[in-house]
């Protein structure tokens, strides 16, 4: 049976990486009402979340 944590983990790792790269390459990109680099922060958060899911899936596999 497919462990859902694997595909959703990869999904957020990829999504986080894309958004993080935008945040790094265009650090001055802003929406009219934001004054921080939100791509950077949300990219990192999604990467961490995706990594966490993958880690959990690996631990379950080892057992």
């Amino acid at each position, binding site marked *: 049976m497919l462990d859902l944590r694997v595909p959703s983990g990869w999904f957020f790792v990829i999504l986080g990486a894309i958004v993080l790269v935008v945040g790094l390459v265009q650090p001055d990109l802003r*929406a009219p009402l934001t004054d921080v680099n939100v791509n950077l922060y949300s990219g990192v958060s999604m990467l961490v979340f995706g990594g966490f899911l993958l880690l959990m899936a690996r631990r379950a596999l080892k057992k």
Partner: protein
Amino acid sequence: MKLAAVDYVILAVYFAFVIGIGWMLRKKVSTSGDFLLSGRSIPVWITSLAFIAANLGAQELIGMAASGAKYGIMTAHFYWVGAIPAILFMGLFMMPFYYGSKARSVPEYLKMRFDEKTRGFNALTFAVMTVFSSGISMYALGLLLHLVLGWDFNLCVLASAAIVLAYTYLGGLTSAIYNEVLQFFLIVAGFAPLAILACDRAGGWEGIKSRLPANMVHSWHYMGHASENPMGVEIFGMMAGLGFVLSFGYWCTNFLVVQRAMAAENMSAARRTPLIGAIPKMFLPFVVILPGIAAVALAKMTGPGGEHLYDLPMKLSGGANVKDYDQVLTTLMARFYPAGLLGVGLTGLMASFMSGMAGNVTAFNTVFTYDIYQSYIKKDAPDSHYLMVGKMTTIVGVILSIGAAYVARRYNNIMDLLQLVFGFVNAPLFGTFLLGMFWKRTTAHGAFFGLISGTGAAFATWGLTLAEGKGGIFGDIYTFPSTMAQNFWVAIMAFVTCIVVTTVVSMVTTPRTDRDMEGLVYGLTKIRHDEGVVWYKRPATLAVVVLILVILLNIWFA
């Protein structure tokens, strides 16, 4: 709003993943039970999140932000009063019968407990309702994407329907449920930043409180009189109508959500599915309602040059300019999200639409295959035949939904009328289940006539009262301050009538023997009280924790 290349890339990655998950699950489908019921094998954390996500469609997301802007924090009543208690009740007291009876659907439970006519009535109305509600949300999504991004309406409708069809056809209910979990995560990832950014910009909760009228930032304080609060409802109508009849009717009897819990791997998991799902559910208002409330505060703020930070969206209606609350969510995204995060937010919106639609489609195909096709059209075919029918029904269901989306576009009034009729049909349903499950004397005739007369009472109440120009087609014996109050009272009247008529008819008709109803009724069913399970893993413990949390939330924002 204009999208950058990166936003399209994110959208494409999402599409690839949802279809990919369906593709990976395709081999698991060999019987009709695998396809329509997931073979009852899904881990509890997945069913719990799917339980919440199937209800979190695009209309819910757009509508909650809109209501946040219109009514303020009172909107949270739809969660803290109108959902959590019903979800707890369903997990603790109703799931043992749904799961334990081995019924494959809610209408089938009605057949086992009562008889064919109640099942037939419920199955038919439910099937029609799911098709139309997925059509209506498809229409809402197509309209919004057209308005905001200038995308072609036809393309939006057809492409999103094709993707939902692809993954539900490939992996059946399992695929729909797995994707709902991914979609749930994505909705949170896409909209939590908006809530944080908008709230922060508006000066936090304190800043919002200082800019909004007091009755928009207190959920209970102004409930005494309908005229004092923006919803125009009084406390009894709200508690009984929304908190009891409507919410219990939806969360405890709607197969769309019940199906997710029924797919769990065992009885304990099935009972814990709603209870665990209740935890993210009670915090969702902070993601879906808060941005709408913050929007109203932002609209009252100006920048250093005196320019408005944000303007509430407007639309032309009947020659006058009125606020278009349905666009609050997307216009906020445009103000707060740069390219990149905007793609995530938009994908989150797509994800919510798909989870809602897949929920409808998978509930529709199960009810049609088992409760209509197998019951009335072809009874004794081999299972492979029903698998084929289930798959075909999935295709037909999606096509019918697309049709409904175009009907909604062409004839807006017909859709309003249909939603009204479904409301009448749904309102008394919880009365039937409550008596059926907990009073063994309830008879099949009692249930059927109670249900029909409850529906009639709903129609009569609506027809005899007026609210904002709605209803009153037979006369006007009472005028409600708002259509919401009218809805709540229509539900209350339907429920009471259903209970009374069911009880009276049951008393004068012959009941079934106790032996026939084992596993279906309280008192005749051995409910395992989780002996041997550590206390903190028991459903009751979980329910108490959830209840305490939700009471604290209510007090906090009272």
